[in-house]
């Protein structure tokens, strides 16, 4: 396996993955959803980072399977979409009058099961995309490329992410040590006997960390006025909020159109403004700041192609638009929408783009 370039902008990977998730959000066609999972996992496996985050994909896939299972169980228990093809009938539990709209048990139809599964698969696919993004671009690197105005927050989050596994390790060590003192103590005493050493160590560690960080120049004051700093922070937060809401609007087909692209664009504008403002604060610099070089842009675009094509197909109502939605009543075998499928396949391009030169 050729070595993967590590200097691609982490944002590029997240754009790529989120665009694939947009495709998943717009279709319930299991063929297309499986194709998205395939593309995302294939790229994630080849391009993942060596650190512990590289294993994120597996975790997210397991989570996806769990979502699928939960969705199915809920459908079986609570019913939902009915249909003519009854597979079997579960004993129905009578509920009191005030809960008449809820049904427990009852007939289970093939149509309902297929729909539950396809919705579950849709959610699992989105999770897979997020998992792939985690695997190829360490979320910490993404945090690190946040604008300087958010520096303090991003460092706090990064340190928190670093400390969490250490805390878990120290809890394990203490529990093991406790076994050396005989039978594990039960009840409140157990909580105290486990928590006291773990918390003490965590507290000591954070003090140590704070001391070394200070000794390494964290929080050196620059010559920036507090007002200026507050303004940039507010702009960045508003921008990020806009990006998040806009992204949600794009992912959720039922959200009002105004929540989609317009809010996303506004968020992007605000973020750029904040970046410009904070760039004046030059007291701090970044090592190997990730750059939007052509390869990064290409990676982001390769994911975007799928999303744009699917959105366009839906907007224009071309022949493929119907195939994006799985027909459950009547139950029909899904057909592969050719143009969107080809567009999703473009998402494999990072395999070639991310090769180390």
């Amino acid at each position, binding site marked *: 396996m050729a070595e993967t370039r590590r200097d691609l902008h982490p944002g590029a990977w997240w754009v790529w993955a989120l665009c694939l998730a947009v495709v998943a959000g717009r279709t319930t066609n299991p063929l297309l959803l499986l194709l998205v999972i395939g593309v995302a996992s294939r790229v994630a496996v080849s391009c993942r980072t060596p650190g512990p985050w590289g294993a994120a994909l597996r975790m997210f896939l397991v989570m996806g399977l769990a979502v699928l299972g939960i969705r199915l169980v809920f459908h079986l228990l609570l019913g939902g979409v009915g249909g003519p093809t009854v597979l079997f009938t579960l004993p129905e539990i009578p509920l009191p009058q005030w809960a008449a709209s809820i049904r427990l048990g009852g007939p289970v139809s093939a149509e309902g099961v297929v729909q539950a599964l396809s919705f579950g698969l849709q959610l699992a696919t989105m999770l897979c995309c997020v998992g792939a993004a985690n695997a190829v671009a360490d979320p910490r690197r993404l945090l690190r490329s946040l604008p300087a105005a958010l520096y303090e927050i991003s460092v706090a989050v990064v340190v928190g992410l670093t400390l969490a596994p250490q805390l878990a390790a120290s809890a394990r060590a203490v529990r093991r040590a406790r076994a050396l003192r005989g039978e594990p103590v039960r009840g409140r005493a157990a909580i105290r006997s486990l928590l006291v050493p773990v918390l003490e160590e965590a507290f000591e560690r954070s*003090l140590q960390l704070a001391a070394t960080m200070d000794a390494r120049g964290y929080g050196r004051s620059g010559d920036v006025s507090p007002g200026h700093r507050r303004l940039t922070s507010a702009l960045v937060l508003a921008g990020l909020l806009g990006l998040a809401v806009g992204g949600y609007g794009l992912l959720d087909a039922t959200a009002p159109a105004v929540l989609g692209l317009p809010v996303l664009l506004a968020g992007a504008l605000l973020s750029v403004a904040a970046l410009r403002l904070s760039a004046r604060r030059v007291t701090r610099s970044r090592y190997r700041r990730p750059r939007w070089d052509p390869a990064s842009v290409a990676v982001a675009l390769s994911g975007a192609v799928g999303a744009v094509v699917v959105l366009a197909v839906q907007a224009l109502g071309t022949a493929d638009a119907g195939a994006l939605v799985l027909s459950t009543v009547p139950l029909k075998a899904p057909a592969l929408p050719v143009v969107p499928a080809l567009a999703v396949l473009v998402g494999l391009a990072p395999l070639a783009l991310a090769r180390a030169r």
Partner: protein
Amino acid sequence: MIRFEDVSVRYDGAERPVLSGVDLHVPEGELCLVVGSTGAGKSTLLRAVNGLVPRFTGGTLSGRVVVAGRATEDFPPRELADVVGYVGQDPLAGFVSDSVEEELAYVMESLGLPESVMRTRVEETLDLLGLVPVRDQPLSTLSGGQQQRVAIGAALTAHPRVLLLDEPTSALDPGAAEEVLAALHRLVHDLGMTVLVAEHRLERVAQYADQVLWLPTGGPPVLGDPGEVLGQAPVAPPVVRLAQLAGWSPPPVSVRDARRLAAPLRARLADAVPPAPRPSRGDVLLRAAGVQVRYGATLAVRAADLAVSSGELVALMGRNGSGKSSLLWALQGTGRRAGGTVAVEGVDPATLRPVDRRERVGLVPQQPADLLYLHSVGAECAQSDAESGAAPGTCRAHLDALAPGVPDERHPRDLSEGQRLALVLAVALTPAPRVLLLDEPTRGLDYPAKSRLADALRRLTAAGHAVVVASHDVEFVAECASRVVVLADGEVVADGPVLDVVTASPVFAPQVAKVLAPLRWLTVAAVADALEAV
């Protein structure tokens, strides 16, 4: 470069100041070693240089500390980051990222250096400290020595004029310690950096020091030539003790200098016979065969065979990560074992309930504090008696035998390292196990505390216990072990009497053995006995 003007530090609620009336000047380009017993204020002195004391520790500092022309009362640590680099005791606790390069760049980012400068300095530092092969690895996967070098590198990239190191080698095996010290030596010689090192394991560091600063408990500090100062201090490496015994003045601090003076001593000892390790007299208490320990896909212990008899003290040595701790935990039965057999007095401890297990085999873990959770020494002792079904006062009696005079109402956190270790050892001894395992017990102990521990362990073996000690500390092993087992890569690569194993390789040889080679003497005490007999 570093100037202390009548500096005293007192922590809130403490009976007496940690440092009082410190007046000293460390000139530029010196490697100054700070020595003293535990609690003498070594870390406090180090951290006062860049203002972490008192800003991060509380307490009151009177007097003035000036470093590179800046007084710490006017400049907080972060504003001194460009002139003073600080490396704490536990490198892992100070890391803010998980990649080597980002860690190295962190301080430069804070200083706002341009990216091109950062790139070149990171590359230089990777080369200087020999970290190029691991530059892309996550920090958590590095060995202890590599992590320590990353921590030093992370301080170096700011090109500070002063470097402060708090016990840089105490967690490392002899080989890794050599690596770190060689890197330090280069820094002082090539870059003219002023380095202040606090360290307990003087046998490793003393030879590199230009000056030694001794902090006697309570008295004014003494700064001067290494041999002279260490000659007066209660903490001194074996080579200095040997020099005092042989009457070499001033005492040499390096093995090389000592060898030049040692010819007459060797001649005097030529006919004496080094004390042979006592042959194991008892029956085998602990027998392990083909023990395997697995973490995920990695085999930490491959196939370890070990038999320990009553009255024997076996030292388990080997690199960081060679599987010593895993083996100890597997022998005790609390740690998981993937294969092989362990029998303590004929019973596999892993099949026992924890409470029965500890009556057969006790373990003192690497972090003794993990075992303690109550708020006073007395409560810990009472709890230990209760959970072992021992007569009240058993634990306290053990503690008094190991470390007399620890007050009952003292909080375990406030004990010195040696006292805390004694308390945990007493807790482990309360259910009267015949087999005792200790994981790296000498970490953070000064020389007097180490000899007390060695005495205590000798008393235990004399009483018929079987003791296994995992340790990096060659001097400690030479002092108290009867047999040495060397682990490498999860396998036993050497197993024999202490005299044979430690004299066979320079890495494991104690200083006395190096000075007196080819004669096979290990400790100053043994030489002293022989000289008296002659």
